[in-house]
């Protein structure tokens, strides 16, 4: 399965809905999307990962890269994920301390801390 990406604006947040597999082959597409959003002035991103079937360290690297980019503009990058197998990868790499992870897009969009 390939990667699907769609973006929409909710208030001052940009929600990126990701579906499919994020791996060494597809991660560059996600990186391009995040870079483009930041270059266009979208600094508060919510990445909805509910439709993601697979995530590897290349994907984690892209998300960390996105976080670094938005932080350079005092922005934020929040994740939405309830899938245990995806959350596990964030836990074993210690990235749960780096990314705010929410259970719904509504919650992520409303979060301000």
């Amino acid at each position, binding site marked *: 399965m390939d990667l699907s990406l769609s973006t929409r604006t909710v208030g001052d947040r940009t929600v990126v809905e990701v579906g499919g*597999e994020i*791996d*060494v*082959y597809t991660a560059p597409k996600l990186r391009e999307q995040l870079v483009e959003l930041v270059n266009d002035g979208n600094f508060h991103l919510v990445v909805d990962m509910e439709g993601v079937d*697979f995530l*590897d*360290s*290349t994907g*984690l*690297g892209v998300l960390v890269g996105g976080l670094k980019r938005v932080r350079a503009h005092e922005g934020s990058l929040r994740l939405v994920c309830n899938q245990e*197998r995806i959350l596990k*990868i964030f836990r*074993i*790499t210690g990235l749960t301390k780096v990314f705010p992870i929410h259970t719904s897009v509504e919650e992520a969009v409303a979060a301000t801390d």
Partner: protein
Amino acid sequence: MATVELRFSALPEHVRTARLVAAAVARRAGVDEAVLDEVRLAVGEACSRAVGLHQAAGVTEPVRVALIEEEKQFSIEVGDEAPRSAPGDRASGGAADTDVETEEDEMGLAVISGLVDDVEVTAGDYGGLIRMTWPTTPPGVALT
């Protein structure tokens, strides 16, 4: 001898194929369903790393994956043929590139060691090998 052997050109698009084949053979070998996600992720990480090493070193040989069914265990070996060199030895790319590659390489290994209890990483002048092993329950054998 390996149950299934796979050799693929060192390109990112083939890593998914390796994941699917490894998971299918692991399932047949009796690896617990709950662990198959980990097998899929670990073999993907090992293959991504091998692809990266081959591409960085300009190695045209394929990446090798051996899926080995043994008594009470299932092993996956992912072998690369990228020569290991001292940092800064690399023919192409600046120091910054090397750092990024090393970081990504270590991230993959960190995920593997976080996922797999039984893992062995070896590297020599002519390439490296990651061997990962999981316990199996043979089909038809009841747990007592």
